[in-house]
């Protein structure tokens, strides 16, 4: 098999989402840099791959995909083995539905609460020299506290979000949480011991460690 290609930049949260899945399944891949600071994501060539002009885009032979979660699921399906089934698709329909539920929860509940903090504290200042909007940060932290309360209750009953085994649902939380931990608000997680332990477990995964190497913690 020729290596699959990821178009993007390793610092990008959504690119990291895809790279983590590739690392977890041990696939051979090539990261083709898209210089978003130079506007390369808006170039006609890139827009052909991602019509929204965003990163990542992905190519496997003739297949071209965009949207990091769709790309990630394709990768996890393609490289699935009996021992490595991060979508729990061979476990049964109800089990894979739980992975899907908590994957949707990341997208619909967790991400909208945590991402504004990352955008305001890191991404906007670094990319635009913008000042942090503390009102947005404070509202988001309140919202995140509520979400983490639900997660804490969930992780009291379940070793990982979707069940007893780690899954795509857990891995999805890596990119934005990683950067959140580099903001002044990391200690929020101390209020939720089960969540904190779950996060530390994810960070200890070899694949996560490999992806982290290309993601800065100092800005």
């Amino acid at each position, binding site marked *: 098999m020729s290596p699959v290609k990821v178009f993007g930049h390793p610092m990008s949260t959504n690119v990291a989402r895809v790279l983590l899945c590739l690392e977890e399944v041990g696939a051979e891949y090539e990261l083709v840099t898209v210089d978003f600071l130079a506007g390369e994501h808006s170039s006609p060539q890139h827009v052909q791959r991602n*019509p929204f002009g965003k990163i990542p885009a992905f190519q496997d032979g003739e297949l071209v995909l965009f949207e990091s*979660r*769709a790309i990630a699921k394709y990768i996890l399906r393609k490289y699935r083995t009996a021992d490595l089934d991060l979508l729990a698709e061979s476990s049964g329909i109800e089990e894979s539905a739980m992975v899907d539920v908590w994957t949707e929860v990341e997208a619909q509940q967790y991400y909208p609460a945590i991402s504004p903090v990352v955008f305001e504290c890191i991404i906007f200042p670094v990319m635009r020299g913008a000042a942090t909007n503390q009102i947005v940060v404070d509202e988001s932290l309140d919202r995140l506290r509520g979400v983490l309360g*639900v997660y804490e209750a969930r992780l009291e009953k379940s070793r990982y979000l979707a069940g007893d085994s780690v899954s795509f649902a857990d891995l999805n939380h890596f990119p934005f949480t990683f950067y959140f931990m580099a903001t002044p608000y990391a200690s929020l997680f101390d209020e939720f011991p089960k969540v904190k332990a779950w996060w530390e477990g994810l960070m200890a995964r070899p694949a996560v460690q490999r992806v982290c190497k290309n993601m800065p913690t100092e800005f």
Partner: protein
Amino acid sequence: MSAPVTVYGPAISPAVARVAACLLEKDVPFQLQPVDMSKGEHKSPSFLKLQPFGQVPAFKDHLTTVFESRAICRYICDQYSDRGNRTLLGREEDGAVGRAAIEQWIESEAQAFNPPSLAIAFQLTFAPLMGRATDMAVVEQNQAKLAKVLDVYEQRLAESQYFAGDEFTLADLVHMPNTEILASKTETAGLITERKNLSRWWDEISGRPSWKKVVELQSVPRPSKS
């Protein structure tokens, strides 16, 4: 047929309508269980057991409970695979490639289309129902964001009959509840009608019997508990 499928929440909720549309496409009988949100029923301990974030919909069948409308839709397609429309998640012969083509547009709906269109829908439909004033500044800001997404969609639907290819799939279905609201409001109908391919797509899919049934369900007066 075992115990009926239950969907918790009002049909006018876009996320509930998304699930209802999928069940109707799949020809899976279900009952809609009202959740009186004006009385805070969605935050009651018994409802939180079904949906820990206190939101609608929740879904229950004889095997399990599921929440998050897009996860419910995928579950319905998997669990009831032999019923109704069998190609909502792609044709078996197209495998992971065909599935991925659908998934990228489902994600596009969730990430790009839903936030601005839901914000508009909330202001124009739900705020008045809750006795709140419509914030037209929010509507206008989100119309501008949505227009950019719809331009991408217009281009896509020029190249392709439906989002993922030649057939109606879940990628189209997930867009339907918010599009119905946009198309029905004078403030926003132009977003659809002024785009030739988007109009064609919407005219076609909104004519599906399953969607007509959803619209019917949405117009049933809500039971009042007094």
